[in-house]
């Protein structure tokens, strides 16, 4: 069993007890525990079920590399799945539950998959779910949806807050082990600004656990040196230290994301939960250490089989033993540290299996001197057990797995050597070298990630750089710190790396499969990836089936996917793949390392940008009035525009109908301030606008307005609006509400990058004016009542504009109409917008004034057959499709989009064209519905001949009206089309003219 020891436990406070629940059972731990150490202390080795076969899984590691111990944490608004127990600090009242099991952790029905594993090989899903086709939708997908995924998505809104933090530093050091501390110190001594971050709550890293009695730094024990250097750094004003802060990703030009967990360990503390650091660093040093590799032997996934280094961590840091009798399997000297430690802690180590024929060096001798039995050239043939290891079968490493001996035990410590944590180095393009001696990939210092000046901006230090002894680690870190400081303009003093004594180790022997010639039945129980249930045979099968690229093998077998991204499995997996392909490991290479290093919370990525501050809202000068007068708003670009002003006893539909009718019969006013207003000025402005619009703007007379269309260079309609010529060299271009900034950008782009010798300036004055549309048969009356300028038909005719005053307000009045009614759009200073609106409302009472919203605007424009950008257009529609040929100049040599509109597909007579649609029974067509014709297309779908682009109930005509694009539409006037709705109804509509109301245009021109 696993249990709490009475000795060791340097990180825990035994004087205080902390209570927590796991799957509803109350357990106890101490402050300083991780959830994993506390679970082990409570003899809870079984923590989850594997993804595919639902095999029992226990804790394997003690840090970020843990693949198995993923739990659901918290409840309701603080619920979070997939939290690693090994990096979760225990607090009082924690609730944790295991994942991926049903109905319970101890008895799981899905575990039957393990007996089916022979028929569930690599690529099973790809092969199985192809046929029969109909099964995918009705059988396979529902089944997979139910069983797929680790953990569950939270259902409640996240109750916590998060923040972003921007930081600039000369040198960023990632990793607070002894290498990171030394690198930070050596850099900081030059005066450089240094930021040092460490993902755990403690400084010193593995050195605090693994330093041997004989090892010293500057004559002092290693832990004393760590304390000393940490104290020195905390006193330096140019150094910032952060624990619980992980380097998540390294990006272009020294940009780094770090993930600080502020109160995951103390949820009652006020303030943000996570902080995302957005760092710009001159140089980055990654002192991220190394991760121990598992060994590949049959049954290596059983609970109780753990990394040798993790067993040490649990004993030294938390005073927890993972088992009473531990068998050690290794190919290097490090595992002897575990054996010696366990022995000293009073635990049994019945056997050390060293795969190397000659065994190890000084540490082996030390273990033997303690009376431990070492079998060299030996391997694990198979680990036996159910929910926990019960015994180990021993064989020769050189053989096929013939069992020589059996040893009862309840834990197995495995060590397959170390892999430097090169993830961060690789994120932004750092290359790797294969180090034959240590059988590991380490950074290729000649090919670092490069910054804007071509120099490398990342350096690795310590074990992350392949330095494997204490002395080498400290020298490497010192050099890295000084070089980084120098590269950021600081002169290093002539200081030396601290003098360290290191113990030497016998060389490691690469062991990728145990035993070397393991038979099929053993390989089929030998796990590479514990989280994703990938076995040696799966990778071999993938290679056999032609998935030779490591990236293909990853995706075919799921090796190295999901939350741990193969931190334990990748090297072992690609060694097996290389062997299967008969090529050396570096020829196979690694899969791509991508940020983040371990998963970071979505909350941290979002930061403060949620709720009301997710996106800024633009407000017109009359915004508050609308809100106070029943407006239901809708987003238009970044604006919120009134959809309709809903009165008591009405629903939104009623309000819209009332607004349309009142505007058509009396008087409506609309807040049109959101319309884009761009001033285009200069001696070449006319020439410029002739290029931008499809029609001619240079011939417009001052005092007149013209409707214009803008296309992109590939011919598609992109915006429309009314252009007014203000004076000889000034035009004012109205754009759509959502398009003002975009069109301003388009104008600037052409002026700056193509016609830079043209004398034109553009200013976006959208927000300088409040603009109000005064619409309806009584429009002129209300303006005349307010008094000021002459707005009679004789003086201010349709499509004219004039400056003047109305009701004492300075204004510019455009006689333009988007409704088909007599209409004036009146611009006043933004600061006077509300007052002018109030004046219109007051004066309009006698004429039946009502404000109207965007939906009434849409209906009135549809009744008139006016197109709306974004409804009738979708980026594939040209003006000719919409019957707008009258607005396209035939005379102009050139305009944006003209050449594209001559391409063969654009002049194809089979293009769908704009028509009006009128339902036979007066009902409203569903938006986006397709018109179908007899027969099927090549994909077995109904032939489609058109679609609905705008559809409304018209209160004016008291029936459903719509616009749509239909194949050969204008030529099919009178034909009845079928539109199958998603509700099962077959809608029928007749093709009519798109102008439903006042086709002669008499009402707007009075």
């Amino acid at each position, binding site marked *: 069993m696993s249990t709490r020891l009475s000795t060791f436990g340097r990180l825990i406070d035994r004087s205080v007890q902390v209570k927590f629940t796991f799957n509803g059972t109350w357990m106890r731990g101490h402050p300083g525990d991780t959830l994993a150490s506390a679970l082990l202390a409570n003899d809870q080795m079984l923590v989850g079920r594997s993804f595919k076969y639902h095999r029992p899984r226990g804790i394997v590691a003690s840090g970020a590399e843990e693949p198995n111990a993923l739990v659901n944490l918290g409840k309701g608004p603080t619920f979070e799945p997939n939290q690693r127990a090994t990096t979760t600090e225990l607090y009082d009242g924690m609730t944790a539950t295991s994942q991926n099991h049903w109905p319970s952790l101890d008895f799981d029905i899905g575990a039957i998959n393990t007996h089916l594993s022979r028929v569930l090989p690599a690529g099973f899903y790809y092969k199985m779910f192809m046929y029969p086709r109909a099964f995918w939708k009705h059988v396979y997908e529902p089944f997979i949806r139910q069983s797929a995924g680790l953990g569950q998505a939270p259902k409640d809104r996240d109750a916590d807050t998060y923040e972003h933090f921007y930081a600039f530093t000369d040198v960023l050091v990632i990793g607070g082990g002894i290498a990171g501390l030394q690198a930070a110190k050596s850099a900081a001594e030059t005066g450089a600004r240094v930021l040092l971050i460490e993902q755990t709550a403690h400084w010193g890293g593995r050195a605090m656990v693994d330093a041997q009695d004989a090892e010293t730094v500057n004559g002092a024990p290693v832990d004393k040196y760590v304390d000393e250097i940490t104290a020195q750094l905390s006193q330096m004003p140019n150094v910032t230290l952060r624990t619980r802060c992980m380097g998540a990703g390294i990006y272009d*030009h020294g940009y780094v994301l770090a993930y600080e967990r502020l109160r995951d360990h103390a949820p009652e503390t006020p303030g943000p939960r996570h902080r995302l650091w957005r760092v710009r660093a001159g140089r980055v040093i990654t002192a991220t250490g190394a991760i121990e590799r598992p060994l590949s032997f049959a049954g290596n996934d059983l609970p109780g089989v753990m990394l040798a280094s993790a067993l040490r961590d649990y004993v030294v840091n938390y005073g927890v033993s993972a088992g009473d009798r531990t068998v050690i399997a290794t190919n290097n000297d490090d595992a002897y540290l575990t054996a010696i430690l366990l022995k000293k802690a009073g635990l049994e180590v019945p056997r050390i299996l060293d795969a190397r024929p000659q065994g190890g060096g000084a540490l082996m001798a030390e273990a033997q001197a303690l009376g431990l039995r070492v079998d060299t050239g030996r391997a694990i043939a198979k680990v036996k057990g159910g929910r926990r290891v019960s015994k180990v079968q021993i064989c020769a490493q050189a053989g096929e797995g013939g069992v020589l001996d059996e040893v009862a035990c309840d834990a197995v410590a495995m060590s397959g050597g170390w892999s430097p944590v090169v993830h961060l180095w690789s994120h*932004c393009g750092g290359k790797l070298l294969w180090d034959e001696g240590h059988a590991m990939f380490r950074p290729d210092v000649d090919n670092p990630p490069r910054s*804007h000046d*071509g120099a490398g901006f990342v350096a690795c230090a310590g074990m992350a750089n392949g330095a494997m002894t204490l002395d080498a680690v400290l020298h490497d870190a010192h050099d890295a710190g000084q070089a980084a400081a120098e590269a950021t303009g600081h002169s290093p003093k002539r200081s030396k790396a601290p003098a360290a004594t290191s113990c030497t180790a016998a060389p490691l022997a690469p062991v990728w499969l145990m035993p070397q010639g393991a038979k099929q039945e053993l390989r089929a129980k030998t796990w590479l990836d514990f989280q994703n249930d990938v076995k040696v045979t799966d990778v071999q099968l993938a290679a056999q089936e032609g998935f030779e690229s490591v990236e293909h093998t990853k995706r075919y077998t799921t090796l190295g996917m999901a939350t741990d991204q193969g931190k334990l499995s990748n090297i072992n997996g690609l060694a097996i793949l290389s062997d299967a392909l008969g090529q050396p490991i570096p020829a196979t290479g690694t899969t791509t390392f991508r940020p983040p290093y371990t998963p970071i919370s979505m909350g941290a990525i979002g930061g403060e940008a949620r709720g009301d501050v997710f996106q800024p809202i633009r407000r017109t000068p009359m915004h508050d009035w609308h809100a106070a007068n029943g407006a239901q708003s809708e987003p238009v670009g970044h604006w919120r525009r009134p959809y309709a002003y809903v009165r008591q006893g009405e629903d939104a539909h009623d309000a819209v109908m009332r607004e349309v009718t009142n505007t058509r019969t009396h008087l409506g006013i609309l807040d049109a301030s959101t319309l884009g207003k761009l001033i285009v000025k200069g001696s070449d402005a006319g020439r410029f606008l002739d290029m931008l619009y499809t029609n001619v703007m240079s011939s417009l007379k001052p005092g007149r307005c013209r409707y214009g269309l803008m296309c992109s260079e590939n011919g598609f309609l992109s915006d429309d609006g009314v252009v007014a010529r203000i004076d000889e060299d000034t035009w004012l271009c109205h754009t759509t509400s959502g398009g003002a900034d975009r069109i301003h*950008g388009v104008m600037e782009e052409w002026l700056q990058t193509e016609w830079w010798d043209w004398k034109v300036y553009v200013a976006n004055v959208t927000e300088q004016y409040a603009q109000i549309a005064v619409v309806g048969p009584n429009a002129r009356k209300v303006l005349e009542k307010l008094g000021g300028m002459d707005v009679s038909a004789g003086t201010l005719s349709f499509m004219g504009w004039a400056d003047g005053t109305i009701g004492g307000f300075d204004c510019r009045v455009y006689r333009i109409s988007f409704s088909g009614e007599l209409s004036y759009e009146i611009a006043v200073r933004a600061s006077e917008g509300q007052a002018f609106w109030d004046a219109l409302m007051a004066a309009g009472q006698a004429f039946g004034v009502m404000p109207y919203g965007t939906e009434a605007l849409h209906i009135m424009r549809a009744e008139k057959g006016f197109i709306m950008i974004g409804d009738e257009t979708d980026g594939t529609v040209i003006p000719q499709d919409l019957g707008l040929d009258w607005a396209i100049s035939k005379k102009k040599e050139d305009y944006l989009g*003209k050449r594209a509109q001559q*391409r063969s597909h654009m002049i194809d007579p089979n293009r769908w064209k704009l028509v009006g649609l009128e339902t036979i029974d007066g009902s409203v067509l569903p938006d986006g519905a397709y018109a179908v014709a007899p027969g099927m297309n090549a994909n077995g779908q109904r032939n489609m001949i058109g679609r609905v682009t705008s559809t409304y109930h018209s209160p004016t005509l008291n029936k459903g009206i719509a616009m749509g694009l239909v194949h050969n539409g204008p030529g099919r006037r009178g034909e009845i089309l079928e539109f199958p709705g998603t509700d099962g109804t077959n809608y029928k509509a007749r093709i009519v003219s798109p102008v439903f109301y006042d086709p002669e245009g008499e009402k707007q021109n009075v």
Partner: protein
Amino acid sequence: MLILECPYCGVLADETELTPGGEAHLKRFGPGSSDEAFHGYLFERENPRGVHFERWRHSYGCGKWFHAARATDTLEVFGTYSAQVFDPPEEIRKKITAKRPGWTWKDLS
């Protein structure tokens, strides 16, 4: 996240301040051009692993368009320059040659 120096206002701008504008030094083809020339102008773009010339806009700064010469493989920036030229300036081309002898891009080298 790239840092590019805006040649107009001199600011070292983060990529979040900038808008990418695709390949630089395109020649516009309008009415009267052949289908092939127009297709090339509209759709065909360089996609090099190495030296590249790009258009950028300092959108959340001075608003100016400019050109950048950089390496797509190492992210090294050789320089930024005015958008109002037909070819990269001699000085930038020399700089690239010094670091990447034998480079080519379209008909430049």
